């Protein structure tokens, strides 16, 4: 189903700007919990959907923001390609077979800037964004970047949209770089402690190995190799460990936070740290991903200061409500003051964020407060 709602959406935003009415941008609603609560009229963008162009030999796909992620993945898979940053769906309603459903949209994954287990080896969501079409806070329809690999004309406002959670513009279209799917992959399990795993992951990442994911679930380390059969087998011989069946299911559980570790009522924290940061078991139960650079921690205490001291930052992912697949609405963990979710910014940087927000959304009507109270 293809549908172009550009004009309607632009008119809605322009009218909202005139009246100063805040807009809560909503696609599939699968990541509504990731960020502070937005008070405002709902701006539905899920109906603005459809793949606009896909040329496999150009390694570029362009689609409307409301296009379901699942639809894009199917189109790419038909041509042996994929989104190498492995975006999580976080679908609230998974399909009966446990696979991701159809709710997550392209716009949502780009606005939230989320990347899966392959991130340290393949790159992040923002690394694959080539261009966007947006509606800014004035209701103007603007295009930045393009559909080619190299484009340095003007400021890179397309990548600026990644992770801005709709606070700088309503995404209309996104052009993404896509890559060939590796010919094969293999997951190995290794008996290592968390500390040993972090050290080993970093040493391996400095060698020419076909790594595509590396995590530690609190008990064992898991490493995914991807590439040609010959390269994967050669690397397997070097790394040791035992092959894990159903590797795809395992990594889907890591990506979607549905692995057994995450089925715990304690508040979940996402710590993005230098990959070599020492393991600190005293913080709470850990699940280590991204070859050491991402630490999921269950903790009743706010972990912003700890993450900052370790050279990174923390995000509050909230509690998992009993009997539900998704995560709870944000701002619950440890009852942080003011519903704070993201790492506080230094004052000079926050001031710059506010000026930048004003440059794109002068009346502050797009998802106000979603990232920070004063933004």
């Amino acid at each position, binding site marked *: 189903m293809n549908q172009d709602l550009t004009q309607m959406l632009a008119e809605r935003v322009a009218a909202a700007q005139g009246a100063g009415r805040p807009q809560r941008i909503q696609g599939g609603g699968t990541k509504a919990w990731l960020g502070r609560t937005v008070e405002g009229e709902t701006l539905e963008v899920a109906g603005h959907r459809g793949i606009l162009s896909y*040329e496999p*030999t*150009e*390694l570029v796909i362009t689609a409307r923001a409301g296009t379901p992620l699942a639809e894009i993945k199917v189109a790419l898979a038909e041509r*042996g390609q994929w989104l190498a940053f492995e975006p999580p769906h976080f679908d609230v309603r998974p399909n009966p077979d446990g696979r991701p459903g159809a709710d997550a949209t392209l716009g949502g994954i780009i606005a939230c800037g989320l990347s899966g287990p392959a*991130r*340290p080896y393949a790159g992040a969501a*923002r*690394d694959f964004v080539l261009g966007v079409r947006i509606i800014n806070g004035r209701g103007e329809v*603007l*295009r*930045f970047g*393009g559909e*080619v*690999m*190299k*484009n*340095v*004309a*003007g*400021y*890179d*406002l397309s*990548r*600026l949209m*990644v*992770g*801005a959670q709709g606070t700088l513009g309503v995404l209309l279209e996104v052009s993404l770089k896509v890559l*060939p*799917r590796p010919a094969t992959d293999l997951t190995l399990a290794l008996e290592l402690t968390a500390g040993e795993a972090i*050290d080993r992951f*970093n*040493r391996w990442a*400095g060698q*020419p*190995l*076909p790594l595509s994911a590396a995590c530690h679930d609190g008990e064992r380390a898991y490493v995914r190799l991807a*590439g*040609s059969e*010959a*390269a994967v087998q*050669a690397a397997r011989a070097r790394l040791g460990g035992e092959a894990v069946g159903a590797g795809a299911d395992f990594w889907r559980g890591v990506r979607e936070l549905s692995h057994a570790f995450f089925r715990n009522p304690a508040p979940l924290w996402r710590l*993005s740290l*230098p*990959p*070599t940061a020492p393991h600190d078991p005293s913080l709470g139960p850990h699940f280590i991903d*991204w070859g050491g650079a991402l630490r999921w921690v269950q903790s009743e205490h706010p972990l912003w200061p700890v993450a900052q001291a370790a*050279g*990174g*930052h923390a995000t509050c992912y909230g509690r998992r409500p009993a009997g539900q697949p998704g995560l709870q609405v944000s701002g619950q963990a440890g009852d942080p003051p003011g519903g704070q979710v993201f*790492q506080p*910014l*230094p004052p*000079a*940087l926050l001031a*710059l964020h506010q000026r*930048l927000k*004003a*440059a*794109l959304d002068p009346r502050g009507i797009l998802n106000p407060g979603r990232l920070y109270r004063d933004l």
Partner: protein
Amino acid sequence: MTERCTGQQQGDHGQDNPPLGVQLSVDHHPDSPLTPQARIARQAELVAGLLAILPETFVLHEAEDLRPYECDGLSAYRQLPLAVALPGQVEEVQAILRLCQRLGVPVVARGAGTGLSGGALPHADGLLLSLARLKSILHIDPLARTARVQPGVRNLAISEAARPHGLYYAPDPSSQIACTIGGNVAENAGGVHCLKYGLTVHNLLKLEVITMEGERLTLGADALDAPGYDLLALLTGSEGLLGVVVEITVRLLPLPERAQVLLAAYDDIGQAGAAVGAIIAAGIIPAGLEMMDNPAIRAAEAFVHAGYPVEAAAILLCELDGANEEVSQDILRVRQILLESGAVEVRTARDEAERLLFWKGRKAAFPAVGRLSPDYYCMDGTIPRRRLSEVLGRIAAMSAAYGLPVANVFHAGDGNLHPLILYDANVPGELERTEELGGKILELCVEVGGTITGEHGVGKEKIDQMCVQFQPQELAQFHAVKAAFDPAGLLNPAKAVPTLHRCAEFGAMHVHANQLRFPDLPRF
């Protein structure tokens, strides 16, 4: 307008320029709103302020000291600044920016000055801030695979320092032996490796930036992401208009186990273009995929004797890297694809020496073409690969119509063209016609769905073509973003993003045919 000189070779210094006095030698300048007296007063005030921050050796203000800074790699545009400052400490950069903010003096930052779009061209009423003395590699962390460096460090020096750890820095602009990492960040530089390993923006972790107000900001982190907006991405490629980068943390990659290159010759340039698509459709992402057309092949062969087939219409160079087993397998597959796509000859480099020889011609293509002609003008535009054949055909037609030969050397893998227009600056009007042809080529890139710059930046050179690629509301949005960082507009003014007024004038040139400079030339 900025002073224009004939000749593109650096060192061919301004015979056209009037002799300059020894001190406080600013002349009246058409771009400057200041009277000569006001400029002299401003220079005196600026120099006095700088001398309170820096030792005398590092403040240049006499004409002969300023002369080496009058242009960057695009020497068709030249301009003396009021002064040059050479800070050696981050704190000095901060103090200099605060001084300029207070005095309302424009600032143009520069590294090695190898940029090709006039992005580091001095401002007539401004300071040229050289970051060349900030050239320390501060720390290499082999376990975390990062290097923390100052902006004046040369691109290649990072890989040289990382090599003992089995690591390297992937982006490899052709000028990597001389260009600095700070300039790479300002232009989001690319190179042969970009298709597989990305541009500068994909290989950065953290920047330390000084705002025009002298505030120090950390953008990005030693972690793989950072809270808030992705200002690291925004600053990258912003051509020095948003802040001055004083420290950079780059990501290092493991040196590939093996690299192997293939050379394929074609009688038909369209077949060579199709071969590029066929390789990618087969699921192979080469580390480098470069194409040269016949004029470029001949020039390179005459210069470096790489053994290139000089009769070929085009050659493709395809480098594969990675694990030993994978490269062995892919070489055979690519060889097959090249033969099936109509290559008349496919060679595989037998050893490292031959691999380097294959590349030597490509890397020396620009100077090689420079031997054929008194001057050449290197363009930089990107197109969707599938339009390659059509675009090269239309460039050839334009080249014939303008009577200016064009040689093509480019990054075929990512559609980044570098047409080299051969001209003679001593022939009156030829530089202007060359620039006009260059502009037409860039407009063609936009028309087929590409962009006016893949890796060189807009700078001074392509500022009018920005009006072709972007709508007025988009340009206005860029200006609003600029104002969020630099409300007074003092960082590298009049570069990269044109004023709407300028676009209106540029558009008028096309609308009113009788006002065109060469009304007798055919239009495309």
